[in-house]
């Protein structure tokens, strides 16, 4: 699964991995904004961004071909739109969409591949995303694997006792969803109990204090400068 690979990569210790997550989020947004307004005619700028992103990936000691491939998950969807543009008589728009969405996905993959999940959440919080939302995201991610595994195991258990899961009809499937829900609900209660037992009263403390260093400032300006300059200079 995708998250497993991203998580593995995010445990690296390169220069990029060590940057403050808020700095990385900022740089990501600047890249995305620059990329999102690329025109079909601006092939050179697109190539420049591609080179910079690839160089960042290799500087972060990530397996570049697999990172490029990971970003390519957005391409099938983009292909559909490219085809539609083609039939609508605007093929260059379709190409532009494919390039933009792939470069954007590449940017996001790089952010995730160099930022561990707890750091990312800390970064979001540092950027004043509502704490409440961030904490819901924290729990969502924490129990995503557990529940996906449970759902998968339930499917497997059905399969291992029944031959084929597809023999489940509509009502059985909804019963399974119901059971999954009841168990998720039960689990949420159990988690809340465990938290309460350990002193939780509505506030989750964080102690990973991340500090912005000079390197982070250099990192932001070193990347934002060229990215914007290229948008200005290249036709």
């Amino acid at each position: 699964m995708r998250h497993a690979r991203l998580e593995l990569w995010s445990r690296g210790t390169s220069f990029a991995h060590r940057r403050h997550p808020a700095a990385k989020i900022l740089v990501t947004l600047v890249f995305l904004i620059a990329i999102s307004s690329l025109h079909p005619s601006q092939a050179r700028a697109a190539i420049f961004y591609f080179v910079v992103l690839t160089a960042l990936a290799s500087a972060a000691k990530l397996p570049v071909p697999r990172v490029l491939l990971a970003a390519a998950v957005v391409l099938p969807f983009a292909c559909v739109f490219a085809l539609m543009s083609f039939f609508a008589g605007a093929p260059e728009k379709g190409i532009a969409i494919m390039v933009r969405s792939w470069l954007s996905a590449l940017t996001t993959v790089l952010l995730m591949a160099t930022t561990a999940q707890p750091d990312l959440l800390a970064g979001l919080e540092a950027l004043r995303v509502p704490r409440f939302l961030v904490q819901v995201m924290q729990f969502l991610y924490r129990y995503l694997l557990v529940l996906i595994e449970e759902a998968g195991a339930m499917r497997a258990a059905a399969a291992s006792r029944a031959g084929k899961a597809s023999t489940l009809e509509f009502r059985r499937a909804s019963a399974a969803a119901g059971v999954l829900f009841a168990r998720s609900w039960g689990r949420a209660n159990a988690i809340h109990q465990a938290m309460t037992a350990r002193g939780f009263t509505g506030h989750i403390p964080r102690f990973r204090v991340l500090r912005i260093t000079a390197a982070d400032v250099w990192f932001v300006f070193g990347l934002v400068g060229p990215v914007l300059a290229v948008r200005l200079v290249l036709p």
Partner: protein
Amino acid sequence: MSRIVEVRELRYVWEDGTEALRGVDFDLEAGETVALLGPNGSGKTTFALHLNGLLKPTQGTIKIDGLPVIERNLSQIRRKVGLVFQDSDNQLFMPTVLEDVAFAPMTSGLSPEASAEKAMDALRLVAMDHKANKAPWHLSAGEKKRVAIAGILASDPLLLVLDEPTTYLDPPGQRSLATLLSELPQAKILITHDMPFARMLTKEAVFFQDGQIAGRGPVDQLAAHFNW
């Protein structure tokens, strides 16, 4: 005697790169019982999940009762192999205990009445018939385990694979499970950290270590050798 399980050069790498199995060869004859021992994380559960095709080998082959474990054979294979999962929460997926245990008989084409009867018989074997209409997630941990075992017994498999079946069972439950299992004629693979239980059921064990079989032989000898 016919060979029930034949595993050759089995390797498995999890998505995140963990090499859980690194070349496992394993055989089991009809009617035999073997205990799988080994430290936490040595690959026992991963191995068990391969036996009815829930995981696809990264490399290597598996045959059950002479039948290769491949996509095309899965529905046959799954009727032959009964797997009790390590976590019974993952195994119980129907809204009531009775429906859950009757699931396998139902899908194998038995009538609802016959299935329910079969399920009740299995529930009686694990002393859980009095909770037939309860929701599985309202049971205590040990009660869940009993129901999970009943679900497998009701499906009449050729081979039983039990992944830590004694967890959460009370001592009489453990003993009666041992008695019950020892009376079943099927071949059994028993993954457990509970040495007295293993000794009650079999003399023969296999020791897993780092995704490989580090030894096979009498339970006592292996236990002494690995300081278990």
